[in-house]
């Protein structure tokens, strides 16, 4: 079945690319053919095949039930012997927020009756001593006030060699034998205790299961930008994940957090050496999670994502700049995978996943080159020949506008169609029952589609720049996330995006100069580019998010009825943040959430 699904998706992508090429040839060759036209057709075929591949994942996901595959045991049995370590790697994050999450998860685990099986371990790579002191005091507080049955530990590395992968590897080498299973989280992860217990049950039930990944939902978004992603993660991501899971078989994904691993399998398979050479393409592997999944599969372990596991959450960037910063790291990490395409012993699907991750970033510069080639094509076109056959009437070139429109509609259909299908499924299957408002849900879907169309040219530019930087040898480093200080002013926004504005202006001016017909075709791309500073700034503001919420836009079930673990986290954090003003709690008067994250 897995092979059939893969074959269908490959064939679908190939057929779509062939149709797009045919239509493009009709349009581009209408005024004569030249090498630039051939390049444009090749670029369009590649990018269209990539979009079609994504669409095929989502469409498959729409028709797969999320309850069908692995329903939860109705009569859960107690867990077997052995401890489970819950790892919380941190790097200069806000300690009060991290400790509040740990406390909420610990209490949630205790409520399942399996608390004695769990240890929570904060693995700090924090380089700032002030923050590290607060981390220690927060852990002491967890030990004194947390559930009696659960143990809490704290370990700090002075040097963060190997970043997060190195942090976890050092823990495994020092303490791994104490834990048959490890739940790996991020600093901003949150999971229900019942979900963690269920994950352990599934691991215990399948001895060859090396890693089980959940699909975390995004929570706590405040701005328009963050809320749009939150909505998309709540409704679109599960369908894409179900499609992905159905196609990956035993060679599933690891997204670095909100997952459980079999410690022995992980230790024997995932010792990551640094790549030869210097960054950006050499050195420590930034996107280590994809590689770890491939290495587990190489050693015969099953890696699986179970989209039916609820109760798994994370926070996301609340503005385009933070999103682009994170994307820069992921871009460098995925392009590093080019070095591993020929790694010995990997499963073919793992190699394909690497190629897919690389293509996720290469697609943007390919689109950009396509736009530039389209702009320059009239300059390089051969002179028009109205009399290709002697003594015959003149032949005038036809603009082939209908084919061009068909091409554009087809590409937009591939991008938008899956989202509309997902919305239809949510309405038909009653997924939207948890949200008693069909009209706002549909309105949100339309708003998300329009918003992603506005956002696409801006992210295209940021991603293209990331790819060019990596290919030119610039290392992006590893900046700390800055998820609480998220509002972007116009000055900062302009500084980050003036070059996008310049590109938009050049595209429009070029179209007027070289081929006036192109002006209207370029408008949907160039206008968001020219407005980028305003879009970035406005969409980062809490006010924009509040307006959206008041209008019923981008509401998610988790907002309307937050899970108990989310409520517990918010209560702990509110209390601790208030107390953090007094030195006897954290030892750092005035240390508040945003200040730590921004430091």
């Amino acid at each position, binding site marked *: 079945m897995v092979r059939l699904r893969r074959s269908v998706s490959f064939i679908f992508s190939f057929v779509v690319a062939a149709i797009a090429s045919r239509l493009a040839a009709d349009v581009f060759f209408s005024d004569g053919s030249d090498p630039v036209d051939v390049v444009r057709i090749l670029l369009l075929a590649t990018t269209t095949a990539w979009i079609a591949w994504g669409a095929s994942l989502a469409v498959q996901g729409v028709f797969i039930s999320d309850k069908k595959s692995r329903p939860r045991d109705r009569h859960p049995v107690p867990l077997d012997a052995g401890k489970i370590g819950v790892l919380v790697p941190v790097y200069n994050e806000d300690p009060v927020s991290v400790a509040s999450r740990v406390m909420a998860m610990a209490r949630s685990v205790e409520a399942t009756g399996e608390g004695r099986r769990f240890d929570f371990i904060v693995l700090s790579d924090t380089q700032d001593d002030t923050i590290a002191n607060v981390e220690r005091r927060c852990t002491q507080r967890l030990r004194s006030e947390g559930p009696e049955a659960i*143990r809490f530990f704290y370990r700090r590395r002075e040097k963060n060699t190997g970043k997060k992968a190195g942090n976890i590897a050092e823990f495994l*080498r020092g303490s*791994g034998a*104490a*834990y048959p299973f490890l739940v790996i989280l991020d600093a901003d992860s949150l999971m229900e205790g019942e979900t963690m217990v269920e994950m352990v049950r599934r691991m215990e039930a399948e001895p060859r299961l090396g890693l089980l990944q959940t699909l975390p939902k995004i929570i706590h978004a405040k701005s328009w930008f963050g809320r749009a992603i939150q909505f998309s993660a709540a409704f679109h991501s599960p369908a894409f994940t179900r499609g992905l899971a159905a196609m990956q078989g035993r060679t599933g994904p690891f997204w670095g957090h909100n997952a459980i691993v079999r410690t022995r399998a992980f230790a*024997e*398979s995932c*010792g990551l050496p640094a790549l030869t050479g210097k960054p950006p393409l050499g050195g420590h592997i930034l996107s280590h999670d994809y590689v770890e999944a491939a290495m587990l599969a190489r050693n015969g372990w099953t890696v699986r994502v179970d989209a039916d596991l609820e109760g798994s959450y994370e926070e996301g960037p609340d503005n385009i700049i933070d999103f682009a910063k994170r994307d820069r790291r992921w871009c460098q990490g995925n392009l590093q995978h080019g070095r591993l395409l020929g790694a010995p012993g990997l499963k073919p699907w793992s190699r394909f996943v690497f190629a897919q991750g690389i293509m996720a970033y290469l697609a943007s510069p390919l689109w950009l080159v396509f736009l530039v080639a389209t702009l320059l094509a009239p300059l390089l076109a051969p002179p028009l020949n109205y009399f290709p056959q002697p003594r015959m009437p003149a032949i005038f070139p036809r603009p082939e506008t209908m084919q061009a429109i068909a091409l554009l509609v087809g590409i937009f259909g591939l991008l938008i169609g899956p989202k509309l299908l997902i919305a239809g499924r949510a309405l038909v299957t009653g997924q939207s029952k948890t949200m008693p408002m069909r009209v706002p849900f549909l309105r949100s879907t339309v708003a998300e589609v329009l918003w992603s169309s506005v956002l696409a040219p801006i992210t295209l530019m940021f991603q293209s720049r990331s790819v060019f930087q990596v290919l030119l040898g610039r290392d992006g480093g590893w900046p700390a996330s800055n998820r609480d200080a998220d509002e972007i002013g116009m000055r900062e926004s302009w500084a980050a995006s003036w070059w996008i504005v310049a590109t938009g202006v050049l595209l429009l001016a070029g179209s007027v100069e070289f081929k006036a017909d192109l002006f209207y075709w370029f408008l949907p791309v160039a206008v968001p580019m020219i407005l980028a500073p305003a879009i970035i700034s406005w969409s980062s503001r809490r006010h924009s998010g509040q307006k959206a919420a008041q209008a019923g836009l981008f509401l998610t079930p988790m907002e309307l009825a937050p899970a108990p673990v989310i409520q517990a986290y918010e209560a702990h954090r509110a209390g601790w943040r208030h107390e953090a003003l007094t030195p006897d709690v954290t030892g750092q008067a005035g240390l508040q959430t945003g200040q730590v994250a921004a430091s």
Partner: protein
Amino acid sequence: MSSVPEVKMMSERHSQDMHPPVAPLAMPEQMIERPRRPFRLAVLLSAFLSPAS
């Protein structure tokens, strides 16, 4: 009345040492890159141009 493990746990909870338990586990480094082989054309040329040939 507390059992022995519970007493041990209580003392752990109030200990200043917050380090996780010591339980080493081997995590050998894996081979993920093929060893680099010299470019074949260069090998051929060097063989062809070497004085011994």
